[in-house]
C-alpha cells in the first residue's frame, strides 16, 4: 500500500454518473455507484487517522475509518455491518446525506479539496450487502434481560425516524406496529425524494426487512384523527409510542397570484409524481401539469428535486429562483452540480413579488425583484435586501414553491397535553421524551425540517430510551410476576 505522502497525490475517485443530457429525460438513478475496484482504490486513500475527525462530523458517529479499512481488506459485508452498528439505513444515507457539510467536511484530505468519498463508499457497501447477502440484524444494546414478546409498542409516521425506531424496537423483541397516514410507508423517502436520486426499490427493501423483523405496518391511519394517541395507549394497549410525523406542511410565498392554476407547492408536485406516479399518467390516474417554462422558488434539496423532476417530465426550460447567493444555497452540493449539468438555470439574488395569471386563470409569468446581501441575520447568513426599481418578469407557465416546510399539524393539533414550541414542533428531552409519559418523538417533527440522518439518529436514541422506560415499568412488573403487559 502506498505511504501517506504518495496517497496524498492520489486523486479522489469520482463516482460514475449517467450522461447529463440523457439523464435529464429519464427517472433512472443519476449516480451509478462504485465498482468494487473503484471502491477499493478510493478506500486506499484513507489515512485511518487516529483522531478520526470525520467521525465527529457524522451526526450518528459512524465508525468511518474502521469500515473503510474493511473495504481495503475486501470485507464488504463486514464493512456494511460495521456501519449498521450506528446507521441502519446506509444505502439511503450514502445517497442523500449532505456529506460535504458533515463527515467529508472534516476529513483531513478535505483541506486539500479532495476528501475521501465517504458517502460513495457507504453506499457501495450497503448496495453490496443488499445484492449479495441476506441482511444480518445488527444487535441493539438492551436495557434489561426480560423477554419483550407481546409488549406492544407503536410508531407513528414511517419516515426515516419512524422506520429506525421501529427496527430497533423490533430487534429488541417488542411487538411493533407502525401507523402511517399515507397509503405507502417511507415518509419523505417515498413521497419527496425522487427515484433518480433514491430508487424506491431500496426503500422497498428496507420496508420488507422491517416486516421480516415482525413489524406490522398499518397505512391509512392519521393518528390524531383516525385514532388518538391516548386511545392507542389505553384502548389498544400500546405501552409506549414513538412519534415521527415529520415536517410536511408546505410554506407558501404569500404573494399575489399564488393561487393561480399552475402554482404548486413542491410537496404537491413531488407527491403527485413520486407517490402517485403521475409521470406514468394516464396508466396511473393522478395527473400533473407539465409546464414548458418552469420556475422553482428556493434552493434547498426540495427545490433541486422539483426542478430536476420538471425537466424529466418534459419541460423545455427550468430555472431556480433564489433570493440569496450561491454560497447560501442549502441543497447538497452534489445535487446543485447535477442540476447545473442537466441544464437548470439559476436566477440568484432574485425574489418573487407576484405571480401573473391570464384571463383563463393559468400562470403566465412571475415578477421578481433583484436582491443584494446586507447584514447577517439570525441564521448567520447575510440578509437579502431588495434593490429598488429592479423588478423583472420571468416568462413561465408553471411555478413550484419550495421555500420550506413546517411541522405536520395533524397529530399535534389533536393531542391535548403534548407540549409544543412556538413553531409547532414537539418539545422533547435529549432522548426524545415528550411531555406525555408514554410518548417519545424525533425527527423533523421535533427539529423542524432537517436531514434523513438526523431523523434516523433521533429514532435510534428514542428506541433506547423507550426500552429503558419499559424495562423499568412494564417489564419490571412482569419480572415481579405482575401481568401488566397487555392493556
Amino acid at each position, binding site marked *: 500500500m502506498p505511504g501517506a505522502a504518495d496517497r496524498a497525490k492520489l486523486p479522489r475517485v469520482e463516482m460514475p454518473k449517467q450522461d447529463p443530457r440523457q439523464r435529464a*429525460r*429519464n*427517472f*433512472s*438513478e443519476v449516480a451509478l455507484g462504485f465498482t468494487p475496484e473503484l471502491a477499493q482504490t478510493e478506500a486506499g486513500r484513507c489515512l485511518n487517522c487516529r483522531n478520526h475527525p470525520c467521525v465527529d462530523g457524522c451526526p450518528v458517529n459512524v465508525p468511518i475509518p474502521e469500515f473503510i479499512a474493511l473495504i481495503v481488506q475486501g470485507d464488504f459485508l463486514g464493512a456494511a455491518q460495521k456501519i449498521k452498528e450506528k446507521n441502519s439505513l446506509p444505502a439511503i444515507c450514502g445517497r442523500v446525506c449532505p456529506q460535504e457539510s458533515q463527515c467529508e467536511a472534516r476529513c483531513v484530505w478535505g483541506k486539500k479539496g479532495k476528501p475521501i468519498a465517504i458517502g460513495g463508499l457507504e453506499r457501495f457497501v450497503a448496495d453490496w450487502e*443488499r445484492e449479495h447477502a441476506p441482511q444480518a440484524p445488527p444487535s441493539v444494546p438492551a436495557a434489561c434481560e426480560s423477554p419483550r414478546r407481546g409488549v406492544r409498542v407503536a410508531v407513528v409516521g414511517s419516515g426515516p425516524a419512524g422506520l429506525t425506531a421501529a427496527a430497533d424496537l423490533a430487534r429488541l423483541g417488542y411487538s411493533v406496529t407502525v401507523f402511517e*397516514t*399515507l*397509503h405507502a410507508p417511507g415518509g419523505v423517502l417515498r*413521497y419527496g425524494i425522487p*427515484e433518480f436520486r433514491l*430508487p*424506491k*426499490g*431500496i426503500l*422497498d*427493501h428496507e420496508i420488507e426487512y422491517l416486516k421480516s423483523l415482525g413489524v406490522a405496518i398499518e*397505512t*391509512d*391511519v*392519521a393518528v390524531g*384523527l*383516525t*385514532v388518538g394517541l391516548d386511545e392507542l395507549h389505553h384502548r389498544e394497549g400500546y405501552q409506549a409510542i414513538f412519534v415521527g410525523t415529520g415536517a*410536511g*406542511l*408546505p410554506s*407558501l410565498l*404569500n404573494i399575489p397570484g*399564488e*393561487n393561480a*392554476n*399552475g402554482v*404548486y*407547492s413542491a*410537496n*404537491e408536485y413531488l*407527491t*403527485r409524481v413520486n407517490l*402517485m*406516479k403521475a*409521470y*406514468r*399518467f*394516464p*396508466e*396511473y*390516474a*393522478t*395527473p400533473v*401539469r407539465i409546464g414548458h417554462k418552469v420556475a422553482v422558488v428556493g434552493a434547498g434539496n426540495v427545490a433541486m428535486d422539483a426542478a430536476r423532476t420538471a425537466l424529466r417530465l418534459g419541460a423545455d426550460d427550468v430555472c431556480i429562483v433564489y433570493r440569496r447567493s450561491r454560497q447560501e444555497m442549502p441543497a447538497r452540493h452534489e445535487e446543485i452540480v447535477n442540476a447545473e449539468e442537466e441544464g437548470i438555470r439559476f436566477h440568484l439574488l432574485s425574489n418573487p413579488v407576484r405571480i401573473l395569471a391570464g384571463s383563463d*386563470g393559468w400562470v403566465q409569468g412571475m415578477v421578481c425583484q433583484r436582491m443584494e446581501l446586507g447584514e447577517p441575520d439570525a441564521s448567520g447568513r447575510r440578509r437579502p435586501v431588495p434593490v429598488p426599481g429592479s423588478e423583472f418578469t420571468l416568462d413561465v407557465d408553471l411555478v413550484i414553491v419550495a421555500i420550506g416546510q413546517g411541522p*405536520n*399539524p*395533524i397529530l399535534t393539533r389533536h393531542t391535548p397535553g403534548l407540549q409544543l414550541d412556538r413553531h409547532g414542533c414537539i418539545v422533547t428531552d435529549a432522548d426524545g421524551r415528550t411531555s406525555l409519559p408514554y410518548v417519545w418523538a424525533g425527527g423533523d417533527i421535533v427539529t423542524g425540517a432537517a436531514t434523513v440522518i438526523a431523523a434516523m439518529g433521533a429514532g435510534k436514541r428514542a428506541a433506547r430510551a423507550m426500552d429503558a422506560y419499559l424495562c423499568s415499568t412494564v417489564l419490571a412488573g412482569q419480572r415481579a410476576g405482575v401481568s401488566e403487559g397487555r392493556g
Partner: protein
Amino acid sequence: MFPILAARLLAPGIHEFVVQAPRVARKARPGHFVVIRVDEKGERIPLTLADWDAEAGTITLVVQEVGYSTRLMGQLAAGDALQDVLGPLGTAPPIEKVGTIIGVGGGVGVAPLYPRIRGYKQAGNRVVAIAGARSRDLLIMVDRLRECSDELHLATDDGSVGHHGFVSQVLEKLLDSGVRPAEVLAIGPVPMMRAVVEVTRPRGIPTTVSLNALMVDGTGMCGGCRVSVGGVTRFTCVDGPEFDGLQVDFAELQQRLQQYRSQEKLAADPAQRKEACRCLEQLTAPSFRG
C-alpha cells in the same frame, strides 16, 4: 383493503356504498370526509361521509360518476373492496342548539348535508331542508331528509318535482316569507353555493358552505386544496371543508377545480389511456431493480 358490503344505485350515475372501515366509523362526526383510492393505480379523492355506523364499523359513501375515479368506483359491487380509505378528515364543527337551521343541498351534495342536518335536529333545532337536482330522477335521499327535518322543500331545474328552478330561489322565498334562521348550511356544486350566498349576504344571515376542492393527501401536506377565505389562504382538508360562505372566493375555487380538465378527458377514455401508456412506456427508462 376496505371491503364494500353493499352497493346500490340511488339515481342514474349516483351510487351508494357501505364500506367496512371500523376506525373511521368509530370517530366519524357530521361534516367529516375521507380520502379514498379505488385501486393500486388510482387517484386519492375526497368524499364526504353520507353516514356511518360505529357499531357495525361501516361508513356510507355516495358517489356521482363525474371523472375517471368516480366512474371506476361506479363499477364496483358488494364483495369488491376499496384499496384505501383514510379518515375521518377535516374539522367537524360542533353542533349546538341555535334555533332554526336551513340546510340547502344540491345534486350529490344532498348526501353530506344529511348527517349535518340530522345532527342539528338531534340537538333540538328546527330544521328546514331544501334539496334540489336537475330533475326528479336525480334527486336523492329525499326520504332520509324528510325524517330529520321539520320542513322539506324540493326544487328541480326542469320542474319535474317541486319548485321549477333553483334551490337558492326557494331559499329566497322562505327568507322573504319571514323565516329567520340562525344559520344557513349549503352543500353542492360551486354555482349553487355561490347563488345561496348571494341570497344570504344582503340579509346578513350566517352561511356555512362545504367546499369540494381538489385534494391529494387530505392531511395538509400538499396545499393543492387551498382556497381563499376572507383574503387568507386556507387548506380545505385541514381548515375545512366547511367555511364561512360569505368570505369564500368562489371564482378562484371554480377556476382551481378546472386544473386537470384536459387530462381528465384523457384518463376517462380507455382507448386514449392505452395509447398514452404505450408511448410513456418508451419514455420511461427501466427503473432500479432492488
